[in-house]
């Protein structure tokens, strides 16, 4: 034992003497190891931070620790959707049973019911908004709150609606250029008639006498013709809002509030509202502002920014259409003052406002938001308004639900993610309605109807009338197109959603597609997954439990792929480094043939020589590996001190789970990188050590150089 220690001491002594003696070799080998160690420490710290950040934001916003869905589903669960549309999941017909089964697993803190899907919302049309304003004036007049100010407003609103109807009439003439004239001609003739009436002066004179019937005509016959805005896709998760809030700490209500318990409603994704609903000109200004202030880009010479500037300026029509004559005059006055010109034509003023360059941008941005924005409606709805959400029910037919928008929601870390940040949240009862959950009795009824109708499928209108008690047609009796979205600013009467009777008192009773399970201890995920599936089998349910990464679908796969790529890259780098280090050591060994031979001649065993060379390379590895790790840690610290790596694009914002990546140094990644470095130095020392043992004393004495 003591002999071994003494030998080790001698070996170390020799090793360090040699290292200092042949400094060039030591520096080269050490340099490569140092470089490698820095790379591994910094790289793994970055990937670990990205991984941990994304795990935290996805787990904390939607996935929970474990996701559970029916094992008999045709597609795997994909929380953020897949290329083929929503995954086809077999629903849990009675979620309460599932919850009861999962609750038996020890360590389960919460089981949250969910139903994910996509639906269409209409951002609404400006015509509806204008008519709603007019209706408010009519009411005020009827209530006897007259006055010169109201009269002026009433006249202005009338002029606004009338101008829009005139534009509409001209617009519809355009349709004849593309539409096949042989079809729908009767309907189109009726539309033309309606428009002719709405633009005639007789109609507007009558408004004073029979305001309510005239308004009804405008709302029911003219508004549906205003083909403003396409229907846009909204991704939602239907859930029990109280349980959801408790389970997911990443959810932030940016504006408004959570619907009170028992109320139905929708929380719209903030990014979704910004990206798809906001006034385009305002959205472009926001994007420019972010690019210029946050990413320090310049409009001059940046092709993308130049395009945004052009687009912001090209989208003033939306803006002009919103303003009635009174507001337009006010806007022109404010802009003229702010821009310091004598111009009073609003169109020209707007063109001037949007003539942006790097110098005037921040001033113009302020003018837009301080002067113009208060007159405008930046989003097609305000918090508190109702929107119509249309979903393709499981049967394929469209269902629509009117929901009150209670607020805007975002998930910390996913604010800018096109996949994950656009998610809106709605109550479970509304989801069930959209999903078109039908019991066995209704299904039999449909089959009967199908048989009666022959091979032809039911038309949409018939299906809805039959299946849902004509609810849709009751709500807008004369709408030419039953799916036509409701005016957004109607009062909350409809905002509570139809069919409140569909909602059972216990939100867990009824259909759900999947469940998020929150555990007391996240480290127990694998065990909990096994136990949940077992508990399902015991309860006669077919439960499949997956991790957040699997459940996240494409998003989760991308993280896995990124990790894999980093490890492969590190592996390749070290493979090449191994060869180079090995080579340097072999050459260094060969230079010492004389020395080694002499040592052998004076009685050193082969094993001693072998150990000597190996200890040398390990000593280099340890010394420089440690130095490299320390340097790497220093680099990580510097990055943190400098405020992290800023996310240059929205995609990076998502991976960084925030505006910048603050790398954290885990003890694990440090240990792993040291381990790798040690392994490399040992392995690369093996071959030179072997060569050294082959040196015979004779060879050493013969050698010339």
């Amino acid at each position, binding site marked *: 034992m003591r002999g071994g220690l003494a030998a080790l001491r001698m070996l170390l002594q020799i090793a360090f003497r040699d290292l200092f003696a042949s400094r060039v070799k030591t520096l080269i080998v050490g340099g490569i190891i140092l470089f490698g160690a820095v790379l591994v420490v910094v790289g793994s710290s970055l990937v670990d931070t990205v991984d941990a950040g994304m795990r935290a934001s996805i787990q904390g916003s939607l996935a929970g620790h474990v996701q559970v869905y029916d094992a008999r589903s045709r597609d795997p669960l994909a929380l953020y959707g897949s290329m083929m549309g929503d995954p086809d999941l077999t629903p849990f017909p009675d979620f309460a049973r599932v919850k009861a089964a999962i609750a038996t697993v020890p360590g389960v803190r919460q089981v949250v019911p969910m139903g994910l899907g996509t639906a269409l919302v209409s951002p609404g049309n400006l015509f509806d908004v204008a008519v709603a304003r007019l209706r408010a004036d009519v009411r005020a007049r009827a209530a006897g709150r007259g006055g010169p100010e109201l009269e002026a407003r009433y006249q202005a609103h009338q002029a606004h609606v009338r101008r829009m109807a005139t534009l509409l009439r001209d617009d519809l003439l355009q349709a004849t250029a593309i539409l096949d004239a042989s079809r729908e001609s009767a309907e189109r003739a009726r539309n033309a008639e309606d428009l002719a009436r709405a633009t005639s002066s007789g109609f507007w004179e009558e408004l004073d006498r029979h305001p309510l019937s005239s308004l009804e005509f405008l709302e029911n016959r003219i508004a549906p013709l205003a083909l403003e805005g*396409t229907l846009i896709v909204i991704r939602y998760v239907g859930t029990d809002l109280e349980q959801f809030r408790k389970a997911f700490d990443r959810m932030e209500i940016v504006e408004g509030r959570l619907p009170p318990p028992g109320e139905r409603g929708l929380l719209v994704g903030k990014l979704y509202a910004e990206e798809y609903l906001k006034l385009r000109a305002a959205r472009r200004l926001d994007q420019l502002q972010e690019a210029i202030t946050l990413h320090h880009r310049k409009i001059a010479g940046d092709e993308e920014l130049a395009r945004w500037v052009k687009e912001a300026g090209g989208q003033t029509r939306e803006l002009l259409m919103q303003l009635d004559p009174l507001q337009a005059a006010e806007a022109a006055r404010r802009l003229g003052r702010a821009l310091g010109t004598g111009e009073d034509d609003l169109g020209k003023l707007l063109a001037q406002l949007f003539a942006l360059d790097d110098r005037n941008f921040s001033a113009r941005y302020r003018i837009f938001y301080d002067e113009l924005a208060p007159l405008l409606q930046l989003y097609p709805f305000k918090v508190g308004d109702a929107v119509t959400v249309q979903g393709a029910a499981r*049967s394929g037919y469209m269902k629509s639900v009117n929901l009150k928008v209670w607020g805007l929601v975002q998930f910390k870390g996913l604010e800018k993610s096109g996949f994950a940040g656009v998610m809106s949240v709605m109550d479970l009862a509304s989801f069930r309605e959209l999903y078109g959950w039908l019991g066995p009795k209704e299904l039999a009824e449909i089959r009967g109807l199908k048989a009666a109708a022959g091979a032809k499928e039911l038309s949409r209108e018939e299906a809805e009338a039959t299946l849902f008690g004509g609810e849709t047609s009751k709500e807008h009796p004369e709408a030419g197109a039953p799916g036509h979205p409701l005016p957004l600013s109607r009062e909350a009467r409809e905002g509570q959603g139809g069919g409140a009777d569909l909602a059972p008192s216990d939100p867990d009773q009824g259909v759900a597609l999947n469940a998020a399970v929150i555990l007391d201890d996240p480290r127990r995920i694998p065990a909990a997954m096994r136990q949940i599936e077992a508990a399902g089998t015991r309860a006669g349910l077919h439960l499949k439990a997956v991790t957040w990464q699997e459940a996240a679908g494409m998003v989760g796969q991308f993280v896995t792929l990124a990790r894999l790529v980093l490890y492969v890259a590190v592996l390749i780098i070290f493979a090449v480094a191994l060869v180079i280090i090995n080579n340097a050591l072999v050459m260094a060994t060969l*230079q010492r043939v004389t020395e080694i031979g002499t040592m052998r001649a004076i009685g050193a065993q082969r094993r001693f020589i072998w150990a000597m060379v190996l200890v040398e390379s390990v000593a280099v590895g340890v010394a420089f590996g440690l130095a490299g790790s320390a340097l790497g840690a220093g680099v990580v610290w510097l990055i943190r001190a400098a405020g992290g790596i800023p996310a240059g694009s929205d995609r990076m914002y998502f991976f960084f789970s925030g505006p910048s990546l603050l790398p954290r140094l885990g003890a694990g990644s440090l240990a792993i990188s040291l381990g790798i470095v040690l392994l490399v130095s040992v392995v690369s020392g093996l071959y030179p050590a072997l060569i050294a043992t082959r040196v015979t004393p004779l060879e050493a004495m013969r050698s010339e150089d």
Partner: protein
Amino acid sequence: MLATDLLISARNLARHTRRNLFLGGAIALVTALLVLLGGLTAGIREAMLDSATTIMTGHVNVGGFYKITSGMAGALVTRYPEVLADVRRHVPELSFVAVRGRGYAKAVADTGSMNLVLAGIDVAAEPRFREVVQLQAGSLDALREPGTILLFEDQAKRLGVGVGDAFTLSAPTARGVNNTADVRVVAVAKSVGLLSSFHAFVPAGEIRRLYQLRADNTGALHLFLRNPAQAARVAARLRDDLAHDGWKVMDADPQPYWQKFQRVNSEDWTGQRLDVTTWEDELSFLTWILSALQGLTGLLATVLMVIVVVGIMNTLWIAIRERTREIGTLRAIGMQRRKVLWLFVLEAALLAVLGTAAGALLGWGVAAAVNRVHVAVPTAVQFFLMQRHLTLSLHGLTVLRDAGGIALVTTLAAFYPARRAARLEPVTAMHHIG
């Protein structure tokens, strides 16, 4: 003279077989790696171009939007026969044109439903389509009849339908009405990568029927050029030429057409505008994967080259120390400094060339083996690699360029040690021991 020098270099290399084998091996490894990564990138790019140009885009497209009101756009080209005539006049590089309708619908079958991007196609007029799309069942000719559809195998599986089965297409229109049409599956084609998971083909008339359009409307003209590399130039020229002919043409915007609806809807114009795009524009939602891969390759290449350069310099340092006396002797008998430098650089160059050549061959061999074995790409990664079977595409010129680059860098790395060797004074050099 050069032959003698080469001989000397080769002999010097051969004298230290072991060290040079290692070093050459490292160079070969790096070369093979870069060749393979390059092959992967090119493979993805080609697979993308190949499936995309069959399914959703030409090399250059003349599409556009028709706005009935300024707030409602349809992806339409009205009076397309006239547009087509003008295009033919302006594009002599044209090989052929495919006229395609554009649509989007939800497919509803008894056992499943999914969203489909519809392309209206005239199969009789597109011989290339027949070549690229391989049928699993059914017949392409049947697609001439109205009320028919071609699905890809994944879609058929998902919808639970086969040839002869019927299902319903339900297309949402801006008015909130869903136009529906019943279609019969007449052909099921083998998947050609990611894009075939959500594109399906119907006769051109079917799209018009679904949206109630007149016969002179279509979605887009897909132009195929004899040389796809010219796409960007042709697109830019065509944009100007069409504008010159009096068509209203939209500004270049490198995005696929379906991402433009929002912007177009909020612009203040009505009627028809044409939009000229290239295949790269239409695929811009995927090309970031290529850029990421290229960035990664570049980063890896840089790090590896640093390591290799250190290795080369180290080896030469030691070689020079070993041969100091030899150098001194050569200098003493009248060899010029320049010649000494030349000999050392030549040695390094020879090693680099041999190493990179071996590496290129190795990479080529591995690529050929991978292509032959048909490695199935896991579904998770298919989205990112856009291939079902891993295919590496190697081109002589690219490989040569990569290998040449590496050889050049490694040779340059030899200059510094070689210059030191050349600077040795004959006297000191000859005195040097060990």
